[in-house]
């Protein structure tokens, strides 16, 4: 669902726009819309989520309608249409990971962070959610943290505790 209220206007820095320009060059003349998915990743890395004003600006940049951006951002699971914690722990919840204990890891994260799936901790640092197969089934349970999408394999309750403590100290 798009969150229209509470959204502030955004400004794209010249560094960000330079990255946009670089990406658009990859496609033939007039096919700049192909840059939409990579651009939205850059926007999310910069602002933490893809807000409506940010998506409008992307539409303007690519010379396409805003709705063309909204429909894409809401289709793909990686784009956050709501603000999230600084670190979003995305745990694989699909079959092979569940065979080796992913559900226990998710329960543990919920307890450790004290928030339900999709919610943000009070300090604004953490969110977590279950995601579908991350293509690392032989090394499960696994989780990833954006915007770099750093990957953590063979998780145990201890290694998750360690990871969260380390991120808190950062």
């Amino acid at each position, binding site marked *: 669902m798009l969150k229209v209220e509470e959204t502030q206007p955004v400004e794209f820095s010249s560094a960000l726009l330079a990255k946009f320009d670089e990406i658009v060059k990859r496609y033939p003349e007039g096919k700049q819309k192909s840059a939409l998915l990579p651009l939205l990743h850059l926007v999310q890395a910069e602002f933490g989520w893809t807000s409506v004003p940010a998506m409008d600006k992307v539409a303007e940049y690519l010379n396409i309608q805003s709705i063309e951006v909204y429909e894409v951002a809401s289709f*793909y699971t990686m784009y956050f249409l709501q603000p999230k914690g600084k670190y979003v722990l995305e745990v694989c919840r699909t079959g092979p990971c569940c065979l080796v204990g992913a559900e226990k890891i998710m329960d543990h994260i919920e307890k450790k962070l004290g928030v339900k799936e999709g919610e943000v901790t009070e300090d604004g640092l953490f969110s977590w959610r279950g995601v579908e197969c991350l293509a690392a089934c032989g090394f499960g349970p696994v989780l990833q943290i954006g915007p770099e999408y750093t990957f953590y394999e063979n998780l145990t309750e201890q290694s998750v505790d360690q990871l969260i403590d380390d991120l808190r100290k950062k």
Partner: protein
Amino acid sequence: MARKLLLEHINVPGINTLAVYREKGGYRAVEKALKTLTPEEIVEEVKKSGLRGRGGAGFPTGMKWSFLAKPEGVPRYLVCNADESEPGTFKDRYLMTHIPHALIEGMIVSSFALGANTSYIYVRGEMMPQIRILERAIEEAKAAGLLGKNILGTGYDLELYVQPGGGAYICGEETALLESLEGKRGNPRIKPPFPAIAGLYGCPTVVNNVESIAAVVPIINDGGDEYAKIGIGRSTGTKLISASGNLVKPGVYEIELGLPVEEFIYSDEYCGGIANGKRLKATVAGGSSVPVLPANLTLKYANGDPRLMSYESLSEGGFATGTMLGSGGFIAFDEDQCIVRNTWNFSRFYHHESCGQCSPCREGTGWMEKILHKIEHGHGSMEDIDLLWDVQRKIEGNTICPLGDAAAWPVASAIRHFRDEFEWHVKEPMKSQSTNYGLANYANPIEKAPVVEEK
């Protein structure tokens, strides 16, 4: 030891760099292809090799290439499908992480064979680390004159770009992938026209899996005939198998097609048997979309002959007693795993990933998830099992793309082979919440790994 074509140098330190990759014979195929072969000759070698699409469908790659339309003045595209999202499959991630140049080299040779001057590698968005690895490898190759204008002085130009996805399983379907690459929702297109006629931007396009493209390198180096000598029957060459679940040594293995399934599961060269001294209950042999099989049918045909890891052998017996090689995502379930719970998990996956275009899939996957949730959590009735069967029947074959079939098959096969476990959940709702149905009569009890003779 079996022959390795793709992972031969996987443990060489620095094999992810151009220098070490070249030291180990890398980019020989580019030299050979661009300097001594014509595009037609390369297509011919790939045809001779018998290479079949490694993404799951198993369609002959050389034949796919030969369908590519070549109208005058229209660009042609090669797009690599690196949207690896099939539950149980993680071979492409592994290959791109450790030997990115194998993919880049394959892309150069394949693009040359198809007459493409711009090619894209569509990598699923979650694989940002692999995207960075590939971009670095492309830079290295470009600096060495292997990409860009006038490659190795042959006059051939190629630009190669990495495109991130946005997190959608459906984009592994080739026309959905092309839609996504055009910056749209990943809704599969109605075929025909096939991408070979009208693909990316309406131009002739070939979409190939990472492993298929990487396999072109040894085919060009050694010749298609040499490649075809490996394997069994129409399953030629080597295949990367992603082994996961309750195994002693899960991971990515390169096998020669035709390896006995029993040897793959129990020998120390491969998975090393079932973890924690447990027994095998069931397997999904080719990624979550293929039918689940009980242990006895995994290891042997219905007539008792051993089953092999090959396209034909795994599908022996049809869906009644067989399955498919698919993408090579091999998931093993031990005796403590619940088939109903896993089927529910997979159905949730397909419900989440359905693009929503076709009603049978959009609605049906949701129905299946709900019914399975009900049965798994002790609220099911016997009629629910029949309803579930009915729903999956109505999805299969009634959708634009194969996601509908992929959602239906795991459910159908689970009911076909494990109906008594579903009925037990209905009859013993309380018990099913705290205990497992166990091994029942699904498996020949195999106590320990049998001795496997060296070939």
